[in-house]
C-alpha cells in the first residue's frame, strides 16, 4: 500500500510529533508514505482568495495524480479543503478547464484520478479494523477517551463522505480497538476554534476550552485528536492555562497515531510522546505491565 503523504503546512513547524507518530505507525503497518513536495492545500487561502484556493488544491491533487498515487493527509482541514475543491471542480466544468490550463503550464493536469484520504480512512477503510486489532498487542486498560470528530473530516457530509454526520462512530471504533474506552460527550461534533484564531482569539480559545472541559466532565482521561489544528488549539489552551487549571481541564490531547502506536507495542520515543503539551507520557500508566 503506497500513498503520497500530504503533511500540510502546520505539522512540520507546529506539530512535528504528529508527523513522527504517523510515519512510525504507518511504517509498522506496512503502509508506504511517499514524500512529495506539495503546495498549501488552499484551505487558509479560501477566506479571501478563492481562485488561488482552487489552484492550490487542484495542484496538490494533480501532483499526486502525476505520481500515480492516492493522496493521504493527517490533517482534517487539508482533507476537507481538497475534497471541497474536488466538488467545486466537478460541479463547474468551465472552472475545471481554466484551472487545468493553469496547471498545464507546469505540465500538470487534474482529472480527479487520485483519491484524497485522511489517515483515519486508510486505517479504517483500507487496512480495516480487524487487521488493526490483530496488531494491537498491548491494549490500554482503564483509559477513557473523548474523541474530537471536528469539522472538516465530517462535514459537509455530501462532499467528505466520511461517516454518518449526525452519529459518527468510525473514530470511536478506531479508539476502542486500542483498548481505550470512548466516552460520549456533548462537544464531540463541534469545532476546535482554529479557523478564527487569527481573527478572534477570544472565540477561538473559548471553543477549544469548551471541548476540553466537556470531555473532562464526561470523565475522559484524554482527548483524541487527528488534526494538527485541533492539536495546536489544545496545546495553546494548555500553555495559556498554566499548570493548575490544566488539571482542571482534562489530562491532555493525544494524537490518534500515538494512541494506536502505543497499543501496538511501539515505544514512547518512537511516537514523540514528550513533544505533546502536556507530555503524553502519562498514557504509559494505562498500559498493561509487561
Amino acid at each position, binding site marked *: 500500500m503506497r500513498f503520497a503523504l500530504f503533511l500540510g503546512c502546520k505539522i512540520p513547524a507546529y506539530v512535528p510529533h504528529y508527523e513522527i507518530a504517523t510515519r512510525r505507525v504507518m511504517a509498522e503497518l506496512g503502509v508506504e508514505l511517499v514524500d512529495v513536495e506539495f503546495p498549501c492545500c488552499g484551505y487558509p487561502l479560501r477566506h479571501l*482568495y*478563492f481562485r*488561488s484556493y482552487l489552484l*492550490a488544491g487542484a495542484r496538490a491533487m494533480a501532483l499526486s495524480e502525476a505520481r500515480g498515487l492516492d493522496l493521504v493527509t493527517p490533517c482534517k482541514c487539508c482533507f476537507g479543503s481538497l475534497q471541497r475543491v474536488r466538488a467545486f471542480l466537478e460541479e463547474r466544468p468551465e472552472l475545471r478547464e481554466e484551472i487545468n490550463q493553469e496547471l498545464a503550464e507546469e505540465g500538470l493536469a487534474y482529472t480527479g484520478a487520485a483519491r484524497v484520504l485522511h489517515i483515519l480512512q486508510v486505517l479504517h477503510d483500507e487496512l480495516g479494523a480487524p487487521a488493526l486489532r490483530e496488531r494491537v498487542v498491548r491494549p490500554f486498560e482503564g483509559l477513557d477517551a473523548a474523541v474530537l470528530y471536528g469539522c472538516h473530516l465530517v462535514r459537509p457530509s455530501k462532499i467528505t463522505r466520511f461517516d454518518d454526520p449526525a452519529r459518527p462512530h468510525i473514530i470511536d471504533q478506531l479508539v476502542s480497538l486500542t483498548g481505550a474506552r470512548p466516552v460520549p460527550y456533548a462537544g464531540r461534533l463541534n469545532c476546535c476554534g482554529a479557523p478564527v484564531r*487569527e*481573527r478572534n482569539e477570544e472565540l477561538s480559545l473559548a471553543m477549544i476550552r469548551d471541548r476540553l472541559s466537556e470531555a473532562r466532565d464526561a470523565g475522559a482521561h484524554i482527548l483524541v485528536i487527528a488534526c494538527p489544528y485541533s492539536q495546536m488549539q489544545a496545546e495553546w489552551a494548555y500553555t495559556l492555562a498554566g499548570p493548575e487549571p490544566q488539571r482542571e481541564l482534562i489530562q491532555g490531547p493525544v494524537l490518534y497515531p500515538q494512541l494506536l502506536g502505543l497499543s501496538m507495542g511501539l515505544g514512547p520515543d518512537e511516537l514523540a510522546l514528550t513533544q505533546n503539551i502536556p507530555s503524553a507520557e502519562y498514557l504509559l500508566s494505562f498500559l498493561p505491565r509487561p
Partner: protein
Amino acid sequence: MLFTWSLHLSLAALLLGLAYKLWSWPRIDIGPACRDIPPLRRLRAGAGGFGRALLSRRGGAMLWALVRDGLFQARSRTHSPLAWIAHLLMFWGMMGLIFLHALGPVLIPDFTATLNPWLFLRDLGGLMLLAGVALVIFRRRKLPLLGRVTRWPDRLALGLLALLVLSGFGLQGLKITSAASYQRMVEEYGLLDEAPDRRALAVYWQEHYGVVFPSGQAAPTPELMARGEELNAESCLDCHARPQWAFASWPLSRALAPLARLGGGALAEQALWHLHYLAAFLALALLPFTKFLHLFTGPLLLMARAGRPRESLSPASLALLRALELDVCTRCGACSAHCSVAPALRHVPNLALLPSEKLAALKALVQRPRPESEAAQATRQGAYICTSCLRCTRLCPVGIDLQDLWLALKEELAALGLGPTTLAVGSQAHAQAEAQRSQEPVVPKANGFQQGLLHSAQADTFRACYCCTTCSVACPVVAQHEEPMKALDLLPHQIMHSLGLGMAQEAMGARMTWHCLTCYRCQEACPMGVRVTDILYELRNLAARDQGQGEAV
C-alpha cells in the same frame, strides 16, 4: 600607478563599507523586544555568544557547518542539484582565482603565474566561474518564478562576474599573441645578444607559443627551430609553460590573432586590462553593498546557527542575528521556488507573497516604516498569506531562520497597526455597513446581487431559505454569545435572508460573516440545501475584492 591607486581606493571602500555594515546591524530593530537594547550591547552579546560557543563543545559543530554548508554548500543541494552545482562552480572558481591573483604571490615562494599548475588552474578557475554564472543565468531565465524575482542586484552581481572572467580570458588571449610582451620578456630575461639567436627564439615562439608578430618572422627552418628550442629551454622554460595549458585563453588567442596581426592587439590589450581591473576593483569596493557580502556574512550565520539554538539566544543576540540575516539573503530564490503559497501569485499579483521578496519588504519596513503606503499593505498581505509551513526555513542555503523573521514581521506590522488581512477587510466591511445604515434606511434592492456570487454553481441557494433558523440554532458561534444579535449583527439565517433581498453590504459587513468558524454545521443542518458556510466564504471573498485586497478580477 593607476593600478595601485585604484586597488588601494577599492580596498579602502571595502573596509569602510564593512565598517558601515558593522555599525548598522546592531541599529536595525526587528521585533519590539529589542527596541531598548543599545547597539553596543547587541554587538557585545552577539560576538561574545559566538566566541563562547566556538570555544565550547559546540565549536566542532560550528566548524563542521562551515565546511559542510559553507565550503560544500550541502544545504543548496536539497533545494536544487543544478543550483548547487552552479553555485559550487562559481564559489570554487572564484576562490581559486582569488588565490591565484592575490594570495598565491604572497604565500608561495617563487610563485610564477606563467608556470604550471598555476597557468592551467587560472583558466580552470575562470572557466568554472563562467560556467557557474551561465548556469545561474540559465536557471533564472528558464524558471518563471526565479525570473520574476530577479532584480538589478542579481544582474549587477552576475554581470560583474561575467565581465571579470570574460575580460580576463580576453586579456590572457591577447597577451599570448602580444609581440610587445614577448619583446619585454626577451629584454628582461632573455640575454640574447646576437641577432640570429633573437630570430631563432622569435620564430620558435611564433610557432609554439602563438606570438603574433605584425611584421612577420622568417620561415621556421629546422635549424632556426632547433636553436630556438635550445634557447627556450635555457632562458624561458623556467618561468613560462606552454600557453596551450591555458586551455581556454589559448583558443581565444587563435581567434584574436588576426587582430594582433593588424596591429590592434596592444590597444585592445590596454582596454581589456583596464576593464578587467575596473571590474575587479568595482566588485571589491561594492562588496559590502552587493550580494557578494554573503561571502562574509554567510559563513558567519551558518556557524552562528550551529553554535547556539535560537531559543536560547538573548534578545540582544537575537536582534543582531536577525539584522545580519536581512543582509545574508542573496535572493537566490530557493525559498520562493518552493514556497507553499506561491501558486496564489497567479491571482494575487503581489510579489511580497514570496519569501525572498517578503524579506526585502521586511528590511524596507523596519528601515522606513510607512503604514499607510501601498508597500506596507502588500507586505501585510504577504505576511498573512504565509502558512508558516517552515519549508523556506528548511531550504534556505545560508540557513536564515525565515520562520522566525516572519513572526517578527507580524509583530512589526502589528506595531504599525497592521493586523491580519482578513481582520482588516472584515473590519472595513463592517464599518462600511454601519456607515451606510446610519445614513439611510436599509431598503431591499433588486436581486442584482446574485450575479456577484460566482464561485459555486449553486451559490444562490440562499433563495431557498425560508428563515427556519435551523442554521442559526446549529451555529456554535451564535451559541457562544449571550446576545448574539448584538455581537454578530446578523445571524446566519438573517444573512441568507439579506442576500435574498439583495442587501449585500449588510451581509458582507455582518460580524457573523467574519467570525464564522467554517465548521459547516449550518450547511449540514439546512433542510433546504442552502450552502450557508460556502456562501459566508464567498462573502468574505467579495468584501476583499471590493476593497482591492482580494484577487485580481
